[in-house]
């Protein structure tokens, strides 16, 4: 899923400084599941901002609303009145939701309340680890189902590099992040497919990734 984290409160406070009526707009999909921007988080942030602005002697009218999926126009239609009535919208959706609302309601500025940080897997309660970088040319078939693009700090295609020790990647200060190439090695060994690692992988085609510019998928079979 898409995961995100709330921006520091100070940053959000600074963003809304000039506004009187502020709508905190949540999203009921990915960011709800990762506890960053659902109904509950909207309520918490709204309370924090009410208290903070009151303490600062400039109490604002902070409103709350959460749509089911902020990245699609039809869901945001339900929030139209709330958006129009506010001076400013702080979206607690991912970057896609923020842009969708801006595009749909161009007369109102919608600001990001979250930092969107990846396509991740919840690996334990309260922990999300990045698993996919949406490179547009999936290599998982050759790497035992573990992604080196997203999970190797250097996106190596011919790992592991010399910084892999006891299964841990040297890059992370926590000294606890697994070396994905070590994991790939062990997985392919268990599958009896170590010969896959002997292939020299030529330079990857990054044009399908962000490097090729903004990606756009058009499915003629689905168009109306």
């Amino acid at each position, binding site marked *: 899923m898409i995961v995100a984290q709330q921006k520091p409160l100070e940053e959000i406070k600074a963003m809304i400084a000039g506004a009187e009526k502020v709508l905190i707009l949540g999203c009921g999909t990915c960011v709800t599941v990762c506890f960053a921007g659902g109904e509950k988080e909207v309520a918490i942030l709204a309370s924090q901002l009410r208290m903070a602005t009151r303490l600062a002697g400039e109490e604002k009218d902070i409103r709350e609303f959460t749509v089911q999926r902020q990245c699609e126009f039809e869901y945001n239609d339900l929030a139209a009145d709330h958006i129009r009535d506010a001076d400013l919208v702080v979206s607690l959706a991912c970057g896609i939701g923020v842009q969708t609302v801006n595009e749909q309601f161009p007369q109102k500025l919608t600001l990001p309340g979250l930092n969107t940080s990846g396509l991740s897997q919840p690996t334990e309660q309260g922990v999300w680890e990045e698993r996919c970088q949406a490179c547009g040319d999936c290599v998982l078939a050759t790497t035992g189902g573990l992604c080196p693009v997203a999970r190797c*700090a*250097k*996106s*190596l*295609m*011919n*790992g*592991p*590099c*010399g*910084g*892999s*020790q*006891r*299964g*841990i990647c*040297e*890059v992370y*200060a926590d000294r606890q992040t697994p*070396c994905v190439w*070590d994991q790939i*090695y*062990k997985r392919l060994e268990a599958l009896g497919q170590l010969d896959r*690692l*002997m292939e*020299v*992988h*030529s*330079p*990857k085609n*990054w044009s399908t990734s962000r490097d090729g510019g903004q990606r756009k998928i058009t499915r003629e079979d689905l168009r109306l």
Partner: protein
Amino acid sequence: MSDNGYKVGSNLEKALKAGYFAATGELGPPQSADRSVVEHKAQFLRGIVESVNITDNQTAVVRMSSISVAVMLMELGIEPNIQMTCRDRNRIAIQSDLLGAHALGIRNLLCLTGDHQTFGNHPQSKNVHDLDSVSLLQMCRDMRDKKVFQCGDAIKGQEPRFFLGAAENPFADPFEFRPYRLGKKAAAGADFVQTQLIYNMGKFQEFMRRVVDLGIHERVYILAGVGPIKSVVAAKYMATKVPGMEVEPQYIQRLTDATKGLPSPEQIKAMEPKEAAQARKARKDALEGEGIRICVEIINACRETEGVAGVHIMAIEWEEAVDEICRQAKIGPKYDPARQTTE
């Protein structure tokens, strides 16, 4: 130059092909635009080793560029071996730099992935990693041998020709895969390999046994990475803090014992200035002497190890030591007795 059986005809290639036990050195460029730093370090390496590696912003700290230092070294009579990482340049920039490097007369190239930028002084920078060390080798080999750019377009005119090097760390994990990864680099185009610093001879010898069993030493010249340790603190740091490095406890013990019987730093503090200076020097000499002795022992052990074609001496910020190491080990163009008649 290329019709004599050599790929490029560099000193390094010639020494290795002739079967001499080769010695290469290393020079870290300055973190400034000061040419005199390069000149100062160069004087300790000239004529002593076959070629000198010039690091490419090692540990991701901004330094003078490798190719520009290579030109300075050539002017000073030293053969450079430029290092090129995939961290800061994409395939367009790398190929462009290599066209220029060949035109400037550079003939040795070490292909690396590069240290991650979080280790350096610009941790907020964006990294590139368009290629990795293996695909970089492949690209450079194809530019040289197939006269094509990475995209497949023909190189019309002079192709960039380099004696291609790779690095390998026998102490990284998974240990069982390391010899195979070396083989992969040979398959991708490596002509020579320089290993991580060796302070665990037993593990290195086990690595080499596996490399020899696979026949990789016949496809690529393997230079064992060695270097003198200057202090107990440095040895302990490498043993515990540097990922991918192993230092046998015996070396730490020997460095600790080297200053036995000499006044301790605490005792020196209580001395008169002149006496203290002498005592400090005695400690320094004892430590450095032992550091060099250990290094020479490791070189001798490497020389006895099947499949090792030479050593890569990394005397980082201690270039002065290289001459003494080569003298004691009797290696390199200056001190190898086998070469005194022909060189």
